[in-house]
Every structure is written in C-alpha cells, then in structure tokens.
C-alpha cells in the first residue's frame, strides 16, 4: 500500500490530477479512525491528509473557525472550551466503536460522515455548521464554495453536499465551521420506570412543548444501568441548558407537563454531561463483540414502537432511542444478515432508513451499509458523483 502524504495544497492537487489521469483509486484518510464506517475502499494508495491540520483563523466574537480537516477533534474541543465555545453539532467520538483509541478522530472525518450528537434536533448536524470549504475535486482542481458567514446563499450550497459524502466527491483541504457559545449551566431530568410505549408518547409531548429541551433520549432498563451515571430503571432523559437560575424552573415546568406519569430524578453538572457523552458515543452502552450495530433514522413518534417490534422479531436485540425517538441504535448478533432484511423492511414501513453503522467484515460483504436509493435518485447520485470525480478515484467502494 503506497502512502501519499502531500505537504501543500498544490502538491495535493497535483497528486489527485495525476491519479485522475491514470484512473488510480485513492483512499482518502485523516486520522483513519473512521475507516470502519462504510465499506472498505478499493484502492492501493492512501492519500494521507495529516499535513492539512491546524487552526488557521479563529475569531470567537464571530463564532467562526477556519481549520484544516485533519485537526483532531480533541484539540479543537480544548481550544473552543478555552474561549467558552463549542461545536453545537457535538460530533461523537466513534473511535472506540471501531477498535481505535478514544480522542483521535478528526473534524474532517466527522464532517465527511455528517455525524451529530443528541442535540441534533435543535442544534443540527455537521451539515448545518459547515459554512465553507476549500477542496480538490476528483479532477485535481482546487475550488472553494460557501463562505465564512452564517447567512449566505451565493451559489449552490456545496458544503452541504461535502458533509456526509465520505470523501467520494472531493478532498476537503480547509473548512470553515460555525460555532456556538457554551451554556452557563445544564441539567438532565431522568423520568424513571417508563416502558417503551409510554416513553415514546411522553418524548413527543416534551419535544412539542415550549420548554426548549436540547436533547431527549430513552434508555431501556438494561441500557440505563450501563450508563456512567447509573440509573436504577428505564429512563427518558431530558437535557436543559441555560442560566443557572432558570433551570430549576424548567425542571418544575417539566414536572407539571408530565403530571404524575413518572418519578423525576435530576442529574446535574458533570454527571449530566457524561451521561449525554455516552449516549452520543454509544460505545459503552450497547454490547460489543462481533455484533451488528444499526443506526435508524425514523419519524420520532414511530421510534420506540419500531424498536419494540424489532426486539420481538429478532433475537438478541439491545437498543436505545435518541432524538426523542427519531434516531434508534440497535445492536444484535452479526451472523446471517445481521437482521438487515427485517430491519430495513420495518424501517421503510414507518418512513425511515437504516445504516449498518458497524458490523463484521463478513456481514458487510453480504449487506450494503447504506440503504440503496430508488432508481431515479440513484441515477442522479451517480451523475453527481461523476461531475466531481469522473474517473471514480476518490474512496471508491466506500459507499457500496
């Protein structure tokens, strides 16, 4: 495996142009911690972006940062925390899920996979925070798109397309991200002892209320006791952020809203943050060891009922619901098709789709990681990809 590690933008563009000319596939890599996400790339050369790291400009008052895609997330989080800021989309540290060290992932990887945390329903995903990019297309052209300001409709919103494209359209070399201030205080309410159906209904009521919860999740009993802040029973977790003085009132409002439905326990300060970090990163919550891990995106009101149904139909399912039910994480044995046929059919009936987020290699040979689109859409995506990378040299095979 040849490793190409360009030091400058010009060199990188030259390498890609050359690969384009010779139709030579490249595996584009930042830190490589998310290589297990998606399919294996069919390339005999690695394009190592580690030279494209570091913060170029950071203006806290503008809440905007421009940086290299290979900048480690851990470093970025530190710099932002020092200025009282954060990435609102709260990208997970997926390293441990794929057998990599914690804290090694890059911002480029998080954006390329369009990752997001429990705050996604209000705060958005990576796509919503990538304001501008500089990138090298599959033809070796250096181009830029978007800008350095939040409100911008000048030209197509190519940053949205780059986010979630897994490096298959262009190689990002510089990115500008929108930032958010850190809240003065946070608190998490745990509504205890709810079964999945009750939880599903209650989460919609809370999400539809004026209480401005920033995250809502449901942990069934066996998952709840694994959480870093151990809970004694199944729990709907509701996170609030705001001025310290306002949070007690928010908890009281929540009590009023749910009536006597469930006992409420408050999780405060660092415990609250750690609980949500676990839900974001998944690794410690669901059982590991050669199992299939599915990530479902569904209408929120359908989430818990769907999870229960799949739990009945498939053996050995463990699950949790994030985004008030709009995102389900399912872990089940990775043999046979890893539940693919049943999961995808059931998810489709409620109007959602399923990604095989992690699975044994043998399973990924059988089952597409990403749900194949309908014919018209697939053709459009194929043409789009050819527009950016006509020779198909960037991460071929990654998306299946």
């Amino acid at each position, binding site marked *: 495996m040849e490793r190409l590690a360009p030091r400058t933008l010009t060199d990188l563009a030259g390498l890609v142009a050359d690969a384009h000319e010779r139709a030579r596939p490249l595996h584009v890599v930042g830190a490589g911690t998310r290589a297990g996400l998606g399919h294996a790339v069919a390339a005999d050369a690695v394009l190592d972006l580690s030279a494209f790291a570091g913060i170029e400009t950071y203006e806290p008052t*503008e809440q905007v940062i421009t940086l290299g895609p290979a900048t480690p997330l851990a470093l970025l989080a530190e710099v932002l925390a020092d200025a009282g800021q954060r990435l609102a989309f709260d990208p997970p540290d997926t390293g441990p899920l794929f057998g990599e060290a914690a804290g090694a992932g890059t911002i480029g990887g998080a954006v390329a996979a369009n990752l997001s945390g429990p705050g996604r329903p209000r705060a958005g995903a990576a796509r919503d925070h990538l304001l501008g990019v500089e990138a090298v297309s599959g033809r070796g052209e250096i181009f830029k798109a978007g800008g350095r300001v939040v*409100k911008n409709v000048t030209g197509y919103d190519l940053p949205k397309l780059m986010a979630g494209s897994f490096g298959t359209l262009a190689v990002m070399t510089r990115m500008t991200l929108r930032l958010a201030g850190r809240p*003065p205080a946070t608190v998490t309410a745990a509504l205890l002892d709810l079964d999945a159906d009750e939880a599903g209904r209650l989460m*919609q009521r809370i999400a*539809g209320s004026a209480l401005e919860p920033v995250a809502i999740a449901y942990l069934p009993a066996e998952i709840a006791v694994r959480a870093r802040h151990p809970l004694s029973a199944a729990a709907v977790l509701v996170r609030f952020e705001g001025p310290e003085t*306002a949070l007690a009132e928010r908890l009281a409002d929540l009590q009023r809203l749910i009536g006597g439905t469930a006992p409420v326990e408050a999780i405060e300060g660092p415990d609250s943050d750690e609980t949500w970090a676990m839900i974001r990163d998944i690794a410690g919550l669901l059982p590991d060891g050669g199992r299939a891990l599915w990530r479902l995106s569904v209408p929120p009101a359908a989430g818990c009922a769907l999870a229960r149904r799949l739990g009945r139909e498939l053996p050995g399912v463990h699950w949790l619901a994030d985004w008030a039910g709009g995102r389900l994480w399912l872990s089940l044995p990775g043999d046979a098709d890893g539940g693919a046929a049943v999961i995808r059919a059931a998810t489709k009936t409620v109007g959602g789709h399923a990604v095989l987020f992690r699975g044994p290699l043998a399973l990924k040979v059988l089952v597409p990681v990403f749900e194949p689109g309908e014919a018209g859409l697939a053709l459009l995506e194929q043409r789009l990809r050819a527009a950016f990378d006509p020779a198909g040299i960037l991460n071929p095979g990654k998306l299946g």
Partner: protein
Amino acid sequence: MSLMMPAPDRTVIDGRAALLAELRRLLPADAVIAAESALAAYECDALTAYAQRPLAVVLPRTTAEVAAILGTCRARGVRVVPRGAGTSLSGGALPLADGIVLSLARFNRILEIDLENRCIVAQPGVTNLALTQAVEADGFFYAPDPSSQIACTIGGNVAENSGGVHCLKYGLTTHNLLGLEMVTMDGTVVRLGGGKALDGPGYDLLGVVTGSEGLLGVVTEVTVRLTPKPQGIGALLAGFDSVEAAGGAVAAVIAAGIVPGGIEMMDNLAINAAEDFCAPGYPRDAAALLIVELDGPAGEVEAQMDRVAAIMTRHGAASLKRTRDEAERLGFWAGRKAAFPAVGRISPDYLCMDGTIPRARLPDVLKRITALSAHYGLRCANVFHAGDGNLHPLILYDANVEDELAKAEAFGADILRACVEVGGVLTGEHGVGIEKRDLMGEMFDDTDLAVQQRLKCAFDPGGLLNPGKVFPVLHACVELGRLKVSGGKLRFADLPRF
C-alpha cells in the same frame, strides 16, 4: 436594460404554436395561458426593473402534469422558468423570451399536518404564513419568516433558502426542511431528504437543492419542521451615539452565549424614515438603533433580558427601553417592519441590497457605504439583521431621472464588492438571480464556478431550467466536462459572455 440574457432560440420562438398545442393536449384548458394580456402579469417578479414576456405560462395542478410539461420542454429544447408567488428580489423568476413560465400557484394545498412528528407536508404554492397559521392554535409555528411571508410561497423559500428576522436562533429554510418531492428536467420524480426523519440516505441532495434558485428541479412537495411556540417573548430597544458602539453591543451579546430570537439594527436615516411613517417611538437623534428580541421559557427570557440590558448599558446605550407587554413589543417592531415602505415614502424608488459580512466589520463597511453615498450622490438607508451580519442597504433613487437606476446599481455593486472584500458574501437571503449574477466573479474564480455548473449539468444536462440566472457565463455541459485546469486557471477563461 444593461443586463444580457441568453440569446433567444429563434426556432423555439417560431415553434410556439406547436408547443402551445402540445401543452394544451397535456393539460386542462385553463392551465395554459397564452394571451398577451394575461402573460403581462408574469413578465417580472419583485425586481421590477427587469421584465420579459414569456412564450406561455402553465399552471399545473399535479406532479404528473409537471413531469409531463418538463418532459415535453426537454424534448423540444424549450427553456423553463419556475415561479412561486413572484416575490423574488433578485429576479429569480424573470421569464425568457423563448421560454415558458411554470407557475406553482395551483399547488396550494396543505397535505398533512403531523403534530406528533412536528411537521407539515405541503404543496410548494402554500404561502409561508399559511404554514404557521395552520398550526398556531396547537402551539406551533414554522420558524423562517421572510418579510414577504404573507405572499411568498414555501416553494420559493426552498428555491432561495429564505431567512428572516428570527433565523439567528431558528435557522434558515435549509435548517427547517425535512424532505422534498422534486421533478428533474427529464421528468423524473425524486424524493429528497428523510421524509419525516431528520437524516436522509445518500448524498445531501436536499441540502444542495435548497437555495438552488430553480436551476436543478421543480419542487412539487415540501415537508417542513415545526417549532413549539415560545412561552415568553420580550424585546429591548437601545439607541446608540455611534454605529461602532451598537456593533460592539451586538458582538458582546453573542459572545455572552446568548442566542436572541433576533437582533436588528437601523441607522439614522432608517430610524427617521420609520418615525415619519408610523411613529414607533424611536430616538430620532440616535446614530444606530438596536432591537433585541429574546424568546424561550418565561423565566429564562426575563433573566436574559437582564443580561442583555446590562450589556447595552455597558456599551454606552444612550437610551434603553424594555417591553412590559405584547403591545409594546409589537410597537418596537412596527418601525422596523415598515422600514421598506417608510423609505419608499421618502424616495420614488429604492434598491434593496443583501450582502453578509463578519459582524466585526460592520462599522468599517458602514463608513464605506457613507463614502459611496457621497460619491454617487444617492442616499442610502441601512437596516440589518445585525446578529448574523446580513445587511440590507436601501439605495434611494428616482427612475425618472436619467442614469439614476444605473448609478444606483453601480452603488449597489460597490457595496457588495466591499462585503466580499471584508470576508463576506454577495447575498445572504435574497439569492443571486440576475441581480448579482455578474458579480459572482468577485467571490468565485472560474474553477469554483465550473464546479458549480457541473453540478447543474448532473441535474439538467441541457441547461433548460432557469438559464441566465446565478452564473455569469453559460457553458454547455459537454464543454464543462472537457475543461482542463492548470494552476487553478481555466484554459477557456476568455469564452464570450452573453
């Protein structure tokens, strides 16, 4: 007209009768408009300085009809300009002499209200305000609120990625969409996004179609997210002796981690125009006025109002008022919302610009606007969405005075160049359209534009959908495919401009 549109295709114009016959075969009789008098209503949008009569206007009612129209037009090489309510300020719906206008006016039904999943499925011709009205009683609203919301359609909002006063907290159209049904130029119907789910499969085509100004496809169904109505809303009105001080106050609010529903700024000319128009009680002698609105859980709004008031005082607010009730809050907004008609009263005509800049550069850019105003001999009133740096300078002119429109346009172009120079962009929410098309080169080089146009080719290889908008040079797709670059420069940089 100083603006050049693509040369009309003579054979298409000559084939008008056959085209009309075909459209009448595909559509009900009342869905094809061809009478000259009736076409006049469609010859411009809200950028009224430019007008063009189209070959015909079609008013389909169903997705199948849209697909049939596009299929026929593609086969005949007829250009198509999609149109919502025609409120575009950038000429996005300006017709072509050899093209038809495809109006979505009859796609005016709300198809489903799903409060459990907090979304609405609607046809594109439903107005922005109607979405909120449909769910208000249940405690929800549709967050993006462009000032034309009473008339503009959700389909048009998708095409322009519209913003509004409250997008600082609630985001733009793109952040509030879940899914689209769209017909591409070859008549294929595709569904983009996640339906009622937050994440869709595959590439983010929903994201790239939003704000694509009708160049990629015709949207026939939209699923939008709903937001719970906030418990409490309060506003502060603060006058400052200098724009710098007001700008400093805005930066400090944001830096404090406070996310107001909106922060608006008006300069002295805009303040006085508003006072003359509807007397909202603004301080006439202030150099800059800030309206800061905070919403959220009731107790938190009060706490945040205290913090914001303290920041305003610390940054030298010469006057400070705080709302005690809803009537007072609406009063604060009355002048801002009437800013355009108020300016309309002190000048026969005005041009509304739409650049965005990094917030910190506001005083700098305002100084340049003042200098340009003196240079061109035209007045300029300034209103801004200050929280996100989106400027709306209103250039006052009189179309009946020879050359004044041209002068106003040159003034506007200079303002936008200044925006780009300080790290900003040409348009924050109105779109490029024809208005800023020829300025695209200020922000993007030929390679950047070629990459964007190849995306267009993936959706519309024949270049038939809304051509002449957004891109200053039209390349044939086959030519774009062959373009070779070296050192970031195109080999064919000297292609003729139309």
